């Protein structure tokens, strides 16, 4: 634990003591504070409402100079999230700044679920549907949420 930068220690401590609303952060392995698991609630008034999505988050060696690596473990039907759960979000790529925190990133991802960006898609077919037939897209996204994100909660 002593080898970790103060920044990481401070941020993870903060996340656990003062969690982001609608999110639960855990450290599955006490020996590795760079690896976090997150449970994110789907934002209200979106097709993802009611679902709880699992994400894994890894803070690379150069963090905070480099953005954290983050992906969904729960399948999500979304134009900017692919089958492997990888997320296409500007702050995770070119627009990353060392002043951003894990907290800001998580909020941005929740925001992305609420307002997809089909103009800069990762999955072109989903983006196409999202633009041309939004109702159909919402329907499928809801189905996926029910199938993958809700059942887990009931078990």
């Amino acid at each position: 634990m002593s080898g970790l930068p103060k920044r990481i220690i401070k941020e993870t401590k903060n996340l656990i003591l003062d969690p982001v609303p609608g999110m639960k952060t855990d450290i599955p392995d006490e020996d590795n504070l760079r690896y976090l698991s997150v449970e994110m609630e789907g934002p209200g008034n979106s097709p993802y409402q009611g679902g709880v999505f699992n994400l894994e988050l890894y803070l690379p060696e150069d963090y905070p100079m480099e953005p954290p690596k983050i992906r969904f473990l729960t399948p999500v039907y979304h134009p900017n999230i692919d089958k492997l759960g990888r997320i296409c979000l500007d702050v995770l790529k070119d627009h990353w700044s060392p002043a951003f925190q894990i907290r800001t990133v998580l909020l941005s991802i929740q925001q992305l679920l609420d307002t997809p960006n089909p103009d800069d898609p990762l999955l072109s077919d989903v983006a196409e549907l999202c633009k041309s037939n939004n109702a159909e897209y919402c329907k499928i996204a809801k189905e996926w949420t029910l199938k993958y994100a809700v059942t887990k909660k009931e078990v």
Partner: protein
Amino acid sequence: MSHTASKSFGNNNFLYSSDEENEDVEIFFDDSSDGEDEDNSDIDKNISDKIFEFGSKNKSNNLVKVPETSNINSYRLIELLKNDTGANNIILSHKKFKDKNEYILFPDKENFIKYQIIELNLLLEKQNNDFTKKLCQDNDFSVQEYTDRLISLLATSFWSVYEVEKKLLCLEQSKDLISTTGIWNDLIEITDLQQDSMLCPICCENILDFQAIPFIKIKNCDDINHMACKNCYSMYFKTNISDNTEIKCIGGSCNKTISYTSIKNFNKIYFENLVNFSVLQSFNDFNNTNINSCPESDCENVILSKTCTDFSNKNNLSVNIEPVSCLASHKFCLSCKKEFHSPITCNLLKKWFNKINDGNESLNWVLNNTQPCPTCDVDIEKVDGCNHMKCGFCKHEFCWICQKDWSAHGGSFYDCMNKRDIDSKKEKNIQNESFNRFRNYYKFFIESENNMLLDMRLFNKLTKRKLNNMSTVFGMSFVELEFLNDCVRELVQARNMIKYSFALLYFMDQSHNLFHIFTHNQMELLSKIDELSDLLVDINMDSTLPNSKRDTKVIQLKPYLIQSTSILQKLQLNLAKCGQDLIFKKLEIFN
């Protein structure tokens, strides 16, 4: 000691003057097409030192004369830069005029950078707005700082003076852009904080000694969270510097770009990385066809075209009949900066390569590598060797190129003269016909390419060995033996032309008379190539003669080889002109 020299070339007058002791003003001017001048400058590899060593170089016809009595201060830095005669006063630039294309060649990017800075300086002189005033008037600036700022303007505009000009025009309309160009966004160190300690928002370390680890921020960024300790900024630069042309404020949200000057003050290497990356990016940017590096790998030459060549324009029918060669005599096409491809146009060539690349992969593989046996239709792959094929299935013997019976063929093992009889079988299906047609021409295209590569490998090796050998045995100078090199170079170039002429033929209407004139010219060129190629192989490889005899034979054949070289040249020119006729008549049938 003062010295002035003027030289005029093309329609520009350049005036070179120098007032200092060391005036090694060396201008290489080359009008010939094969520019093989050696680069005589001792090029220092360190860019940041080089960038600053300017000679004074004025385009006298563009010069806006500043009255000496009035307002000289407003152009202080511009004048200083123009009159700066650095220690190594060399600008190696070549200007050539061919047709309407004007272009400048530089031996390396350092000289290119210098040239663009001087061009931008001249542009700024003509501008008269708040931005340029601020840039050129600042009395706290040294010429060095001024130059760095010009570099940052160019580096964020793809190294094009025109792009900077466009930006400057926008600046007049909107003041905000001044901050986004980042030219004034210098970093400052804060050492006199009114606190005993402060927490760095990036690394969360508590900083106690502000002298040892100062806080750094952009001068005109007032967000308290956009400050970071020196260690963090150092790390930040290190991780971002290698693949960016601009570095933003560490805070992110204010979107301010940090000035090059302060990055240079921070660490000179970071600055060099930024400059290097931006130059490379400008070479590779597809929209920016005016600045390119020589397409040959390992060649550092830079080419700057003055005329805008828009080869994506469909109406652009002109073909560059003559290739451009860089200072190391690598030849390439001026418009698309690819391998020289006369007689086909850049547009059609692009279509040709698209044609090759589309379709599915395995079909492409079969298409590229096999052809059906003429009797039993089994797909046959030719791995290497001559054109004499024997089908493994039905044992039929045939020629790989014309697919005729080998017994009736006779010709040489590597070159088939019956290439013309390909379109005898007429298929009803038009698509199939087009496909077969493509397949045939593609076959020729690949075959010519292979022949060219074969010749290149074989002769380059041979002539190199031979030239050394012959100059010692016969006591002849390399100049006298140059004919052999010329001959081989012409041969390879002619093969290259044959290759691209097949690509052109694919697109053309074969019922038209010009098509037949073209193919006739093509065959004439091809037979000359084959003759010369065979001759060169003979005199180099004839194992019945001892080495010395072979060399004597080369010398004996010198007049003939020289003559053949010039015939090759003429035949190529004919073919290129004929190709242009074809293109101008718009005889395209497949689009």
